[in-house]
């Protein structure tokens, strides 16, 4: 059964552009592209696709109380530029006193790569990366792999490749979005906590906040969530490592599947 699932996974991968997964301990990694070609002066979306064995996880850009996010060292042809990873919204992992933020199962870390304007059409280019990551279940294992992808260079804006479309479309749903117009996030600082309020115009029952800064809130502390008539209010315990007053809480707030938003909530001090 398991072998069949693996085979199925390989078949699924082989439909995406790039598809040559590298086996590592407790998971596989691959470099895939949303578009089937490169073009001078245009960018395409690449994805580092992690496919992890059940129970194993990797980390978000803020890993929480332990762990480390994947790191990428790009090996690109002259003139190519890789942007930063757009991190999908993570899940809470572990249990107090050690709580982490990361991914289980399948995770696609998307980023843009731009080809130089003077790239000559007609040939092909190889995009490669040396990726280091930490994979953990009860124990942690440092892993690394070389992944690469060769694409033809053509004129005109690159088009999404049929085999990659679903993969990237599904993964894009997990990318935090900017707050919709009219929504507002703000916070106030009390002695022990930050009280974060998100106004959306409607009642919100569930919300999880993932902090981008490591030393602001205590990851493992219980969080109080209060539904408001026009939004939601979260009470987040301050981190023991918080040393300076905080100007804003930066992070991702998740209200449900496909509803993850980036927020920068200015912090007011009040007793």
């Amino acid at each position: 059964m398991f072998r069949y699932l693996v085979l199925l996974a390989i078949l699924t991968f082989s439909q995406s552009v790039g598809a040559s997964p590298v086996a590592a301990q407790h998971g596989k990694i691959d470099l895939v592209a949303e578009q089937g070609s490169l073009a001078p002066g245009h960018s395409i979306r690449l994805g580092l696709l992690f496919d992890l064995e059940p129970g194993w996880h990797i980390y978000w850009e803020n890993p929480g109380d332990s762990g480390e996010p994947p790191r990428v060292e790009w090996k690109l042809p002259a003139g190519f530029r890789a942007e930063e990873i757009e991190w999908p919204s993570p899940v809470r992992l572990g249990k107090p006193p050690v709580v982490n933020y990361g991914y289980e199962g399948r995770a696609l870390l998307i980023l843009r790569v731009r080809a130089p304007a003077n790239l000559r059409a007609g040939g092909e280019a190889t995009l490669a990366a040396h990726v280091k990551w930490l994979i953990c279940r009860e124990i942690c294992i440092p892993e690394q792999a070389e992944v690469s992808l060769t694409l033809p260079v053509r004129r005109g804006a690159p088009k999404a490749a049929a085999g990659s479309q679903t993969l990237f479309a599904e993964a894009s749903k997990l990318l935090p979005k900017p707050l919709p117009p009219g929504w507002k996030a703000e916070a106030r600082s009390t002695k022990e906590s930050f009280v974060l309020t998100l106004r959306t115009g409607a009642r919100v029952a569930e919300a999880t906040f993932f902090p981008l800064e490591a030393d602001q809130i205590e990851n493992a502390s219980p969080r109080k969530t209060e539904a408001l008539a026009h939004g939601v209010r979260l009470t987040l315990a301050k981190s023991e490592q918080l040393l300076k007053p905080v100007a804003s809480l930066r992070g991702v707030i998740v209200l449900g599947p496909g509803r993850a938003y980036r927020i920068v909530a200015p912090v007011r001090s009040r007793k």
Partner: protein
Amino acid sequence: MRKSLVSTIALLSAILFSLAPAHAARVGEKAPDFTATDSNGKVHKLSDYAGKLVVLEWHNNGCPYTRKHYESGNMEKLQREWTQRGVIWLIVISSSPGKQGYVTAEQENEYLRKMNAVPTAALLDPAGQLGRLYGAKTTPQMFIVDRSGTLIYNGAIDDRPTNDAADIPGARNYVSLALEEAMAGKPVSDATTRPYGCSVKYPGSY
């Protein structure tokens, strides 16, 4: 006889720990006192070291971040340097039985010999009581208690949160800097930093 003495002490320390404050040890406050048994069966009480600087090093010999500092010789070097300068250096192992890093007393002594490690002692904390008392989250995680019993450092060993030994040479070692400052009677500049590494393998942890 010796065994019953040890278990009595274990019970007493369990009672002591149960009175621990709800929040973890905080820099600037009195370091929580504790009693713990080392890998040679010797009992250590923090308050017995009043007048000395004490380093607590949370440890898990299988953790890639701990291995970074041991297999490179970095941790052993720090232990050697600072114990020679009069510092008490206590390794604390809070991995619970069956989890990574859990060791018997004999296994720990064998490990210390093999690594040429020279802490003052290695405290065995399989129930995780000492770990929870201090709020230790990662291995390694470092704490420093000053001569008056105040916690003066809680955090990472250095400023390179990776498991790559190549990052050690250029790193800012917070522990050495804090100990130098404490020895010179100065306040510690980086007194709280973010610890990095593996999660401490407490009972029921993940």
